[in-house]
Every structure is written in C-alpha cells, then in structure tokens.
C-alpha cells in the first residue's frame, strides 16, 4: 500500500482548499438548513398540544414539509457530490502531465486510484456527518425533542448507507475520468448518467411494465395483473442506485414502514388504521428488510471500482 497515504493526504488538502468543495458544501448546508427549518416549524405546529409520537425526531428527516424531505434531497443531490469530487481526478493529472510523474514513482499504480477514492470517501464522510449534525442540532432547537438511542442508531446507519451511495457515484466519476481523456467529456458523461438514473429509469420502468402487462380499463380490475405490473416496474427500477438508496434509507429512517414495496392493495382508511395499531419495526427488523439493498449498493460500488482498476492498470501513460 505504499504511496496511498501520501496521495490521500495531498488529495484531501486539494479538496478542502478548492472553491469547488467550498461552494458545494455551502450549497448543501444551505438547502439542508432551509429544509430542516421548514420541516421543524411545521412539525412543531402540527404537534402542538398533542402527545408526542414515538420517533418524532426521525420525522425531521422524512417529512416532506412544503418542499422535500432531507432524505429525498440527499438521494437526488448526493450523486452530484460524488461526481463533482471525481469527474476530473485522473484526466486532469493526465493533461497536466503530472500523471506521468506520479506513475513513474515507486508506488503501485493502484495507489493512485485508491488514494483518490479514499480521499473522496473521507471528504464525503466529513460532509455528510457535519450536515447531519447541523440538521439534528437545528431540529433539536426547533421541536425540543431529544432523540432516543434507537433514533441515533438509525441516523448513523442512514449516514453509512448515504456514504456508500455517494461513494458509488464517486467511483463512477473516477472511472469516467480514467476512460475519457477530456475533462469536458467526462463531466458530461457523469452528468448524463446522473440524469439517466434520476429520471429515465423510473420512466423506463413504467414503460417496460406497460409493455409486458398493459394496464387498461379491463385489467385494472384484475389484482393479479396489477401486482404483476408493479413487480416488473420495481424490478426494472432497482437497476437504479437511486431506487436502491431510496428504498433502503426510507425503511431505516422510518420505522413504521415495513416493506420497500410501494404498491399496497388497500384503501387509505384501511392502511391508516393498520398503521395505527401495528407496532413499528425494531432496528434489527428494519435492517433485515433492507440488507439486500445495501449489499447490492456496496457490490455495484466495488464493481465499478474494479473496472476502473482493470482499465487503469493496463493503460499507457504518456505525457502529451
């Protein structure tokens, strides 16, 4: 592992002194604070006078408020953190001629990729934990409820999943910076992939489901067809890391949710009464429900990392 430490150190110094990082951090902190503030205010108003329900602290993260919830925000915007941290990591060195120098020093070539990835992950951890701390602090001040041990654990697990999720995007962007020689190309490619997964997969999922099991006037009455349609739609949308992330974090952060499936063939009144009388999942049960999602998320991170490796190890490094 010679050289990894040196590279991590330099990369961290670079990240923390770059405008890019400062702007990104400021942006995310701002949005998080605004979101939490609005959610906190509305929670306080709604809960005024009535007995505080369990897990109210977690609602700070899941309640949508007038805009969106913090969890939704991270799911959508988190990838951008990873992408911005990595999209030019290798090809910038290549075009500056510093890659030749790095690669001709007595370090293993993988130390370059590893060092950059690790420094990115550390940056992501620091970013996400400070945001969660700030949000928790503000929430505490607004609703005046101290989180219980289980809630703290759930937030911690949420943090870990988020770090993996954003690291996946970091891995993708590093891969693109290896494959594409031009920085503009790798920036565009990462952006395109992000948009593809954000919007097109969910659209595509319903298109695919509709082709296999068309839902029309007659089949709408048939519960089997409806179920099948929903199943296909889900299977397709699980290609998207965003879906994986959304599913797993919503279970972890919301103990009353018991399944990652969104289709429930029940009327709203029935659902409501069921929710009221059933006990929330305990932490271990929640984790059990989402463990496949988490493993998949980690696996795709490693796969894209492995591809980076294979490509970079064989690549010719010429100072152009």
């Amino acid at each position, binding site marked *: 592992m*010679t*050289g990894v430490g*040196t*590279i991590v*150190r*330099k990369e961290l110094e*670079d990240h923390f002194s770059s405008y890019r990082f400062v702007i990104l951090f400021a942006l995310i902190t701002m949005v998080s604070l605004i979101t939490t503030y609005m959610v906190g205010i509305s929670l306080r108003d709604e809960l005024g006078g009535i007995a505080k329900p369990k897990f109210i602290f977690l609602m700070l993260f899941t309640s949508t408020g007038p805009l969106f919830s913090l969890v939704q925000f991270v799911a959508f915007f988190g990838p951008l953190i990873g992408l911005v941290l990595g999209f030019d990591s290798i090809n910038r*060195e290549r075009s*500056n*001629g*510093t*890659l*030749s*120098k*790095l*690669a*001709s*020093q*007595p*370090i*293993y*070539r993988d130390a370059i990729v590893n060092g950059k990835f690790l420094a990115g992950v550390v940056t992501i951890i620091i970013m996400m934990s400070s945001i969660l701390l700030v949000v928790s602090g503000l929430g505490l001040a607004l609703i005046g409820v101290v989180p219980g041990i289980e809630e703290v654990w759930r937030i911690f697990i949420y943090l870990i999943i988020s770090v993996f999720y954003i690291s996946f995007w970091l891995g993708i962007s590093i891969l693109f910076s290896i494959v594409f020689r031009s920085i503009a190309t790798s920036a565009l490619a990462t952006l395109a992939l992000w948009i593809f997964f954000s919007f097109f997969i969910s659209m595509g999922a319903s298109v695919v489901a509709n082709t296999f099991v068309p839902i029309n006037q007659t089949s709408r009455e048939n519960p089997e067809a409806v179920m099948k349609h929903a199943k296909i739609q889900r299977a397709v949308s699980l290609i998207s890391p965003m879906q994986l992330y959304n599913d797993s974090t919503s279970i972890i952060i919301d103990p009353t949710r018991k399944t990652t499936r969104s289709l429930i063939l029940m009327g709203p009144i029935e659902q409501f009464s069921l929710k009221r009388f059933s006990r929330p999942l305990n932490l271990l049960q929640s984790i059990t429900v989402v463990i496949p999602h988490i493993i998949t998320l980690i696996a795709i991170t490693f796969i894209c990392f492995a591809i980076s490796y294979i490509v970079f190890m*064989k690549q*010719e*490094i*010429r*100072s*152009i």
Partner: protein
Amino acid sequence: MDQKPVIETHELTKSYLNHNVVDNLSFDVKEGEIFGFLGPNGSGKTTTLLMLIGLTEATKGWARVAGHDPTREATKVKRTVGYVPENIGFYSDMNAKENLQFLARLNNIPDSVSSKKIKEALEKVGLKDDADKLTGAYSRGMRQRLAIAEILIKEPKIVFLDEPTLGLDPDGTSRIIQHIQSLSREKNITVLLSSHDLKQVQKISDRIGIMINGKMIALGTLEQLAEEKLGVGDREISLDDVYMKYFQEV
C-alpha cells in the same frame, strides 16, 4: 567505458494497430554512461522510454533496467530510475517546494530529511529565489530545472530524459546540459538522453544511438559512427553530418 549494462533490451517491439512503432530494438546502456538517443520526431524514442519505465507494455521482446523487468517489477525499476517526460508536469497550484516535498514523500523520504535536500537542490538549479512561487507561473526553462531538482531529490541510479532541451533558449539549453553532465560526473548516474538537438547531444554523450522509424540504425561513439559513414577526415567531426548521412540512406 567498459562496464556492465544497466539497461538492456532484446527485440523490444511496440505496435499500435499492427504498426511497429518500435521495431525489434536491441541495445544496451552501460553504467555511468551518457547515452544520446537520437531520432526525428515520431521515430519511437518516447515509446521506448515508456516501455523501459513500465508506463506502457511491450508487444514483444524484453527489457531489463537495473536487472529488473519494467512490467513485472515496475516498482523496483521506478525506485532506481528518475524519469523526466517530454512535457514535464507540476501541480500548478503548489509552489516548487511543495511539489518537491510531494515527490519526496512518494519516494518514502521523510520530511525531516527532504526539507534540507529540497533547499540544496533548488539552490543548485538556481531556483532558490523562486522556491515559493506557484509552478503554474514558471517558464519552460524553470520547469526543466525544477525537473532536475526532482532528480537531485530522488537520487536515482539511472535517469531517462525525454527531450530535456526542447523549446529552451540557448542559455537555458546550456544550463540543462551542464546539469546533466554534473549528474553523470558527480553522482555517477547513468543517463539515457533522448533528443533531436544534435549539437548538445554531441557535446556530452559517451555513445549515441540513432533511431529512425522504430529501428536503431546506428550505434556507437561519435568517432565510430563518423568513421563508418564519413571516413575519418582531418576536419572536425560533426554529429550533424553523420546524422544527415544516415538519414539520407533511409
């Protein structure tokens, strides 16, 4: 010089899309020697150097650098070789000292040792007064001298210099040439110097190899090459003449 070879290649070949850019190259460089590696643009000099330091893989043949295989024992080779590429790059948002310190760390030289070395090296190459300037603001000549400072920090047994005088003014060129000479004389570093600047190479090279279209078409001391091509006359031998003679034949 009658020493053992520190660089050896045997039928070393690199092809891109079935075209041999380096074609069955066999030569060696002896310890302590300055080897002038000559050839027009596109003749395969850089590609050869890349294969020797493991930045690209040979298609065929083998090479040994300080007794190691550059592909399979890349780190060992990189420990003994200092490589100055054609377009030497520095981190433009760091100053000269920081760039050198990073290089020292990559070579496992602790900061306590390197700080003194960095000062000495910068002084030696005449960059003492610019040590705190960002390297993004360095001129081409300053960058080349900073690259020499890197060599002084790393203290390798062998250096590969790819067109080190390219784009320099006469003053800058002669300074670099002097530095290369002193690396060889004072530290007994073996130098493999690729260039198309004949006059400069002639001044300092112990032996010369001329490469055209991926083939080494001539190899030897300047006198040997002159004898072979021009017949030894009483006029001063110039590498230009020798080179042109070879060039016309291809």
